[in-house]
């Protein structure tokens, strides 16, 4: 064991901390999907619906896109979905598109979408979808998690936990 004085240990610790800091700063640049950044990874996504039909999120470029990560086993997720359905009905013609990404089994998603009368796509995402949500700000990987993308394809808002209708109205007022 090489003997180092207190001061040298401090230097070693500081260099290690600096390295860690630089790595974090770099990883922030790598995960560019923070607010105001292009939602490239999200808009490049193609996921199956409960019947296995692949849908590309890029087809909604130019709209205000609300991507909601959810699951049938998540009560707070289920709670906000009737509001999303109503807003899709009201604001769809003005350029709002809701898309659900379910971290769940296709048959459960199909049943729930049918029971609720869901009027926007419910896609099936696996662990990869959760990892993607993490890069967008869902650091603890919990649900619901919602990302709002503006007409220019940039991330305008990310939300962990339920959205309030007033909050959504304020966001849409800016983006539409």
């Amino acid at each position, binding site marked *: 064991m090489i003997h180092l*004085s*207190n*001061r040298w240990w*401090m*230097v070693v*610790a*500081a260099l290690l*901390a*600096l390295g*860690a*800091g*630089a790595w*974090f*700063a770099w*990883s*922030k640049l790598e*995960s560019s*999907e*923070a*607010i105001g950044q292009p939602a490239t990874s999200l808009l490049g996504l193609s996921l199956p619906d409960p019947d296995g039909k692949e849908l590309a999120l890029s087809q909604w470029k130019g709209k205000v896109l609300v991507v909601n990560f959810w*699951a049938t*086993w*998540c*009560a*707070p*997720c*289920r*709670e906000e979905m009737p509001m999303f359905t109503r807003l899709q009905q009201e604001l769809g013609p003005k350029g709002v598109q809701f898309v659900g990404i379910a*971290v*769940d*089994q296709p048959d459960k998603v199909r049943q729930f979408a049918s029971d609720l009368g869901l009027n926007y796509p419910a896609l*099936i995402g*696996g*662990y990869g979808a*959760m990892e993607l949500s993490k*890069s*967008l*700000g*869902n*650091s*603890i*990987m*919990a*649900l*619901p*998690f919602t990302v709002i993308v503006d007409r220019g394809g940039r991330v305008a*808002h*990310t*939300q*962990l*936990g*339920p959205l309030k209708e007033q909050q959504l109205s304020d966001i849409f007022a800016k983006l539409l």
Partner: protein
Amino acid sequence: MAQPITSPGSQRKRGRSERSRRGLVALLAISASFGFAGLPQAAGPKLLPAEEAFRLSARALDPGTLEIRYDVADGYYLYRDKLRFAVEPAIAEGVDPQLPAGKVHEDEFFGKTTIYRGPAVIRLPLKGGKPGDKVVLTADSQGCADAGVCYPPQRQTLTVVLPAAGGGAGVPVEAAPRRKSYFN
């Protein structure tokens, strides 16, 4: 670490090293703040990751009994009916877990469910466990935060060594911080 014996002139030296030490502390603080500012954070409540909200540990009370413990953080809860336990190898075949009663939770969608808050201690009788056997426990759980989020089902594993009969309970083993989640 041993301090050098003070010699004439070391006073000035100490002054200099004190300054450089202060500089290094500042450097440490700046580096750390880089780290905290690093990850994008969504709007919404500040929440714990699942493995911290639902801390799992286990110990062997004797060769025939595992004690599994979830320490559920304040403001979080676990669903009783989502708990599943399995042990390997088959020689220490797990028998039915003895789950505590829990609290009744009224849910708009799921009706009446039973949940655990605070510590939940579960006993898992083992069949055929021998002193010194290594038992791998796999525990599945799922829970939520009162703030309005739920965590995906999570699977954690930990290894417990069975103690000698009459030798007292083993030391608790905590689940590894890195968790595995499963979906679909």
